[in-house]
């Protein structure tokens, strides 16, 4: 459909639809289509050149987002807090990460600090069992700070390599819930001064522009320094990664591609380009 003849307004509209439909957002889309217009002032672009040109421009936008996967581990136990809004895939992603690290021969501990939602502890206990790793848990209704305290104390005494802390889903607009994350941070530092080394924000891949608002709020409240995007095995393109990356420069570490233990891959910027342009 973009494959024939000279670039005109219709073609630019088509490109606009492709970009918006991928959840890139209005700002990023306008910048890309403006660049397309500039280029066609100077020469005619043929159909398939339009796509390769846009793909290259998108890649440039993502150029300071390196390939993901693990960061450089500088201390053990390496502590990761997993945070994000309700239902984004935090608990499942922890199961997948625990399995990945355990398969590499690392000693992993899961800390079940979602003490709020019904059966949250039971859910992650099943994942710990599937991944073959240890878990520290408290009763539902108990104080999440206490679980973090016990969990990290146990991690230190057991000389664990990795700690994955599951937290309750929370909307970023709930001030008291976001404050709770600050408290978990303070508790962690009582046991391990540099903890949490990583605060991983998990975003649902079907999320629209609200994803940017989520990322900003979580960075502010809990020092998020890494991103995981889930459910990209569906039809959503996950384009909100682009405005988040451009504005907040958060590295995207992992992409969730399903509900099974192995359905997690390290992020690569090419994935966004491929998802958007097919």
């Amino acid at each position, binding site marked *: 459909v973009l494959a024939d003849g000279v670039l005109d307004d219709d073609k630019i509209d088509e490109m606009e639809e492709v970009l918006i439909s991928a959840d890139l957002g209005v700002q990023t889309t306008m910048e890309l289509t403006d660049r397309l217009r500039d280029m066609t002032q100077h020469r005619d672009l043929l159909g398939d050149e339009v796509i390769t040109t846009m793909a290259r421009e998108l890649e440039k936008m993502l150029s300071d987002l390196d390939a993901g996967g693990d960061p450089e581990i500088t201390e053990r136990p390496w502590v990761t807090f997993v945070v994000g*809004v309700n239902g984004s895939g935090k608990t499942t992603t922890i199961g997948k990460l625990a399995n990945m690290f355990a398969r590499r021969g690392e000693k992993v501990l899961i800390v079940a600090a979602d003490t709020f939602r019904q059966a949250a502890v039971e859910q992650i206990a099943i994942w710990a069992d599937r991944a073959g790793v240890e878990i520290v848990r408290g009763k539902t209704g108990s104080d999440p700070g206490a679980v973090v305290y016990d969990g990290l104390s146990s991690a230190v005494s057991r000389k664990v390599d990795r700690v994955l802390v599951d937290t309750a889903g929370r909307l970023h607009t709930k001030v008291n819930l976001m404050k709770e994350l600050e408290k978990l941070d303070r508790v962690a530092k009582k046991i391990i001064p540099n903890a949490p080394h990583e605060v991983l924000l998990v975003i649902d891949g079907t*999320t629209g*522009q609200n994803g940017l608002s989520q990322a900003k709020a979580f960075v502010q409240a809990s020092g998020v320094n890494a991103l995981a995007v889930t459910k990209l095995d569906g039809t*959503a393109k996950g384009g909100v990664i682009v405005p988040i990356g451009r504005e907040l420069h958060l590295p995207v570490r992992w992409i969730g591609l399903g509900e099974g233990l192995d359905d997690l891959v390290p992020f690569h910027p090419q994935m966004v380009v491929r998802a958007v342009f097919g």
Partner: protein
Amino acid sequence: ELTDKLESFFQGLKGRGKLTESDVKAALREVRRILLEADVNFQVARDFLKKVQERAVGEEVLRSVTPAQQVIKILHDELVKLLGEEWTPLRRAKEPPTVILMVGLQGSGKTTTSGKLGAYFRRKGMRPILAACDLQRPAAVDQLERVGEQAGVPVVTNRQGTPVQVASEAKQQARAGGHDTLIVDTAGRLHIDDALMQELTEIREEVKPSEVLFVADGMTGQDAVNSAKAFAERLGITGVILTKLDGDARGGAALSIRSVTGEPLRFIGIGEKLEDLEEFHPNRMADRILG
């Protein structure tokens, strides 16, 4: 916000005399940006604004002394009209129990909302019962059991059965126990998963629901039309529940899903507690989307 943006836009044009059709078009381009930023689907926004444009030009906005206000009124009216009818209660079956089937993508809020609906029916003096037909997510049955317990609604479970079997057992137990309403919770699934979409069709054929409610996350972006359309075409839905609207998501998915399926929004989820379920009001949603 929208009023200020449009007012300053039209103010800027006042100097050069009468407003033209292309002035209105330019103003609506600004509105389009707002709708897209609110996660309204691209095509849906385009079709919607075309309709608004026709009305704006036809209704003498061009001659009005307050064009901004008039455009906003048209926008709001058309949005309310599109978002749908004023709230009506869920359909009831001729013979009890009325069955309500909860479906949707992973993590959208089905289990929580099933509990909320149970509590809602109890408040109305009815005798609901829940069925735990998600046998795939770890501890999903436990989760619904706890939710049901909190709501004072019994939950039919069978961890050894298949989802279709549990649904069938639940309907029998509902009849036997004199329950007038059965709410069936199902596993989250992708609309492109043929086997799981087929499973839902089998559940539906087994329990013959009066309502099939598509539970969607309020912060869903452009993909909302894809999943909603697929569920509507492959399974058939009778209504939509949009969840997590207690956040700051603008909820453009409401407009997209309504446009592409033609089915009404029934409820919205506004929190994690059992009472956090609200009957849907198009007026409030229109305000929210327009920001």
